[in-house]
């Protein structure tokens, strides 16, 4: 037996078992790993162009608030977050859109027409019509959205975080 050039029975069984074992391990193991890491492979959309409607809806002069909701899905859980954007048109060509989120602790600011300022109700932060801090604890000016116009419709570039 030992001088035959072919492998003997014992050796053959070993090789076949090792092969089948590896195959079965892969068939069971790879889906198992895929199952566990699956949520990590989902890429979540963290940015979007939000349509704010036709530009003529926003009159020249006073800032006008536009509210929208973004929904994020994590597994079986849906979370809806509300956001607000102040559209400011100083002139036909000058367009600014500010987030209404206070840069201090993320409270929502409101435009006070009599003061010509955005005021945060939480800690009395004040921002002027260009979003710059004039009073209170906010560390920086209001976040400004990137804008674009398509067929007369206004869009803002929303980024999370």
């Amino acid at each position, binding site marked *: 037996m030992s001088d035959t050039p072919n492998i003997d029975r014992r050796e053959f069984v070993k090789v076949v078992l090792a092969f089948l074992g590896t195959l079965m391990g892969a068939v069971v193991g790879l*889906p*198992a790993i895929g*199952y*566990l890491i*699956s*949520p990590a492979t989902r890429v979540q959309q963290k940015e979007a162009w939000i349509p704010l409607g036709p530009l003529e809806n926003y009159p020249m002069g006073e800032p006008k608030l536009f509210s929208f909701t973004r929904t994020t899905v994590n*597994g*079986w859980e849906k979370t809806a977050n509300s956001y607000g954007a102040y559209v400011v048109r100083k002139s036909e060509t000058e367009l600014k859109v500010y987030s209404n989120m206070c840069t201090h602790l993320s409270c929502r600011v409101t435009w006070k027409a009599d003061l010509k300022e955005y005021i945060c109700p939480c800690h009395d932060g004040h921002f002027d019509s260009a979003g710059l801090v004039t009073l209170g604890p906010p560390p920086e000016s209001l976040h400004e959205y990137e804008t674009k116009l398509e067929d007369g419709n206004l869009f803002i570039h929303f980024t999370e975080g």
Partner: protein
Amino acid sequence: MMFDKVLVWVDERMGLSAIYSTIFDRKIPKTNWWFTLGSASLFLFVLQGLTGMFLAVYYVPSPDHAYDSIQYIMNGVAFGWLVRGIHHWGASAMVIVVFIHMLRTFFYAAYKFPREITWLTGVVLLLATLGMGFTGYLLPWNQRAYWATTVGTEIPATAPFIGDFILRVLRGGYDLSAVTLARFFAVHIWFLPAVIAALIGIHLYLVVRAGISAIPKEDE
């Protein structure tokens, strides 16, 4: 070879080969395929345990999320349908296999001396398996699960005097509620598996200790 040396080194310290030869090299009488059902039951229990562990990664035992979390397993997770499918069909297979295993033991009269305790632990294992089926059936929290458990908990409620109390214990109150779901989940993944694992240990110890009974002859 290096590998063999390591094996010998470990065996000298752990005595694994003695355990191996006691379990796998024991003498057995002439048997047939019906004698494989015990091993098949053990395999199915391990399979249910493993797939159950994986399902527990995403399943949430709360009325708010139970159904949605299973929808997520089925449609949102890679191979989730496979894991749940195996757990689903493995459950039915386990009840069938364990039951036929009991029938074989009964018809071959293998429950007699000195194997009475093996039989008794087997009885509890069969009941625990049915308990796994009963508690697991509620977890998807769909209409079928809800009403099956409504009916299933009403049956013991017909018992005289204590029936009403049994119903409240099973449901964790009068109504089938979030409390019911949570306790069925706990029993399904902790209490019954612990009981089954412990009893399988005793059951197997006794099988190895007493050996397998031969198939009875015509005149016995």
